[in-house]
């Protein structure tokens, strides 16, 4: 059993060396627009925010307010038009596809609303996948995660044999297995009923806190947002 206060597995030199710790995620003047049917649509318009280790931030907003886009940019899945994104101090806008993939692999983890899992791998392999990919696989920690998320009975099953709630628990376990500095979650319970969603979210908050990671939770629900340390509301591409 590992200690909550001394997360021994946090061995990221960049995260630990600086004092005071720099933000795990630092977004400055981020802008992004898409080509829509009626012309160019600005989705993000000069958004800035910081997120530090141990912090949780809920990003709320209407559908289409740009909150998912912000998360995708933060995860290096999309490139912004303007502005700066630093993950663990590294400016990812300057990176190429390869570099961004490495950031995704080693610095952060994403939990999506659905289809998080690799259908061809069983639950155990899915949970361990990113950690092993990042070279930070810790069997003890991974087993612990699975057990805490109630997945230890399902490790040999394949994703399609699981319920939606179980699948999202696997996603959470996988996200936390490499002990990332930053967890990005995009409506992680949006596809689940309220009770199931609450259980998954409780576990996620608990484990993120335990790991000392930073969490950016994108949701449209004020109820869920209330659980985060900080809240930011995105409206028409700007933070309110």
């Amino acid at each position, binding site marked *: 059993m590992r200690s909550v206060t001394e997360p021994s597995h946090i061995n990221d030199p960049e995260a630990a060396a600086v004092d005071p710790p720099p933000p795990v995620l630092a977004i400055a003047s981020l802008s992004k627009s898409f080509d829509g049917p009626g012309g160019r649509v600005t989705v993000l318009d000069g958004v800035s925010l910081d997120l530090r280790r141990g912090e949780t931030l809920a990003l709320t907003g209407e559908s289409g307010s740009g909150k*998912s886009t912000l998360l*995708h940019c933060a*995860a290096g*899945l*999309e490139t912004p038009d303007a502005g700066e994104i630093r993950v663990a101090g590294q400016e990812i806008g300057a990176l190429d*596809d*390869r570099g961004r*993939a*490495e*950031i*995704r*692999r*080693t610095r952060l983890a*994403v939990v*999506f*609303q*659905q*289809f*998080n*899992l*690799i*259908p*061809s*791998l069983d639950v155990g*392999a899915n949970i*361990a*996948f*990113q950690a*092993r*990919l*990042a070279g930070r696989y810790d069997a003890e920690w991974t087993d612990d995660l699975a057990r805490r998320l109630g997945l230890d009975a399902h490790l040999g099953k394949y994703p*399609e044999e699981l319920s939606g709630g179980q699948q999202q628990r696997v996603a959470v376990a*996988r996200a936390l297995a490499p002990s990332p500095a930053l967890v990005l979650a*995009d409506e992680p319970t949006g596809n689940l009923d309220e009770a199931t969603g609450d259980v998954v979210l409780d576990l996620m908050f608990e484990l993120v806190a335990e790991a000392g990671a930073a969490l950016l939770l994108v949701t449209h629900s004020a109820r869920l947002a209330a659980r985060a340390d900080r809240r930011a509301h995105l409206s028409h591409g700007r933070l309110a």
Partner: protein
Amino acid sequence: MTGPALSAILSHWRRQPGQFLTMILGLALATALWTGVQAINAEARASYDRAAGALGGGTVDVFLRDGVGFQDADFVALRRAGWRVSPVIEGWIAAERGRVRLIGLDPLTAPPGTEAAAIAIGDPSDFLTGSGQILAAPATVDRLGTVPLDAVSARGLAPGFAFADIGIAQRLLDRPGEIDRMLIHPDQPMGLPDPAEIVPGITREEPQTAADLARLTDSFHLNLTAFGFLSFAVGLFIVNGAVGLAFEQRRVVFRTLRTLGLPVSTLIALLLAELLAIALVAGILGVGLGYLIAAALLPDVAATLRGLYGANVEGTLSISPLWWAAGLLIAFLGTAIAATGTLWKVARLPLLAPARPRAWARASMAALRWQLAASGLLAVLAVGAGFLGTGLIGGFALLGALLLAAALALPGLLSGALALGAHFAKRPLAQWFWADTGQQLPGLSLALMALLLALAANIGVGTMVSSFRLTFLGWLDQRLAAELYVTVESPAQAAALLEWADGRATALPNWQTDTVIAGAPGEVLTAADHATYRDHWPLLDALPDAWDAVASGTAAMVNEQLARREGLRPGDMVDLPGGPVTLAGIYSDYGNPKGQVLIAPDAFAGRFPDAPRQSFGLRVAPGEVAAIRESLATEIGLSPQRILEQGEIKRVSRQVFEQTFTVTGALNTLTLSVAGFAILTSLLTLANMRLPGLAPVWALGLTRAQLARIELVRAMLLALLTAIVALPVGLILAWVLLAVINVEAFGWKLPMYLFPGQWAALGGAAMGAALLAGLWPARRLARRPAADLIKVFAHER
């Protein structure tokens, strides 16, 4: 609601134009290869019939007189006695390019159906009188040029033959007053006298030529048909895959339509209409394509048939409405076969079944067990056919069962191999690679089966052809031992030659006559008592001192095909005109469809006193060939065309041989291309389905380029595994071809040689095909907008 329903169903194709193209092209290719081969076969058979008609041997009886032939006076005597007969003389004439068979006939008395006579009668003055006229098929006219006189091209004539009036032909062949045979008009007057009283020694023969050619060439055409069928099957794999995929992808649409109140019968009817339209378009395309294939291959087929069987086939293709109809029918049939299962599923589609493509894939994996069981059953059947089946059909049944068994077993074998790979994989990416490849298998298995069939056929046929080539060339070197082969013009010249040769060269009588051996047409050859035969003749089995026995005149050798056909072994007795002889040995005789008997020259002269004895092989010192040639011309007056050098004969034989398998090679390549196409289309259609499998890996930190490379490696790995499975299948195929089909078709068995270099090349080709096929989908993946992948996480697809 039929209209909106139809447009909902069809809207799928607007969004998936590639899939639509796949389906059309797959069906079109299947139809094309099938109809192309059928067209070639039909054209060849029509040519045999024409040839038979041209010779008058195919439709009417003929009068013959063994060894002697007829004179003009015999013809006149028969006519004056009331017999409606028509004279024919035949022989080779030198043309501008090669030799052409000249048929001399009398258009005034030729029986109905003699096409050349009917054409000749259109311009009787030129054909019958003066310096005469030669009629020939257009291609033959090209060969003839202006030698020996102006040739007129006429359509509908048998190719390879030149036709002239009997009088002109007698002059051109320098055989005045001679007639080889007489065609008997089917409508004869009442009360005719016995023809033997008019012309002693005359015999009446039934038509044979067409049937003979058909029998001889049957195996060749069966080969082509088998290839056409294989290609068709490969094409059907593509269509079946495309139809099944389109069904899975439209399952939501079907379900919604049903929920909205569309009766299942209407839905089926709409899908049927859609399939019919697709079959029609693909069928028309396929028949057109088939025509191109046939037109491209026919000259080679014609060359093969001429070289192998002496059967003449016109190098040009005629196209008939029947052909179109048959092509379309096969397209419809193919669609029906490929779509039946899918339509059955639609009919039983549960209204509330969720759209789970992966469940389909998993169900397919479950089908592996059934496939393996079926494969085992087929393998048993194949072995059974091998033991019990007789004849060509049995051989091909064996092949069919064998190939199908292998195809059905393939997914199971691949699945096992991939599981093994996954078991030993240590790194997460490798684990994912093996696991994901296994997951992709159901979607690719049809294409891989197609590849397996193509590869196995390639290995099998390649091994057969190469084994044949090695054996044939070796045999040719043995058989053609004499340095020069000459044919003299008269018995007097033959005597002169023997006198001339005394002391300068050894003249080996090389006489030959056609006769009936064991009830079938065959030929008798001579072998002198000489070291040439003892040292070089390729014996398969023989009594001790076999050559001494032959030289004594009491024994004979027979070729392998005759021995096999009649079940003869050394020591048995063989019936020959003039009494039976002991069988002293059996020799191999590749490329000859007829039974053959080898006896001593004296025995030949005794048994066939009327047969010409004017061909000789000359053994001379190698350095003296040119001088001897010269001396033969100046001292005996032998014209240069009557002297052939060993090297020339070998060169021509090799040419014939190489040409023989050009078509097989072309069909092989085509089949492999179709299989490559099957892989491409499968990968393309799978590309969209695979996004949910790839997006998480991408989100977890792999670039699209990395994923694309992995996808390429995956396709090549599958191709390689398939090639490995194909190797033993192909070798069994080769063995069946060499030891079963060849014996049945040609009457000789060939030793099997192995060509690992060929296999490596073919494995490379398979992986190359997979690489080419995978390149486009991989490139598309590498350049895919991130949004497409992100969408996976946000939308119900």
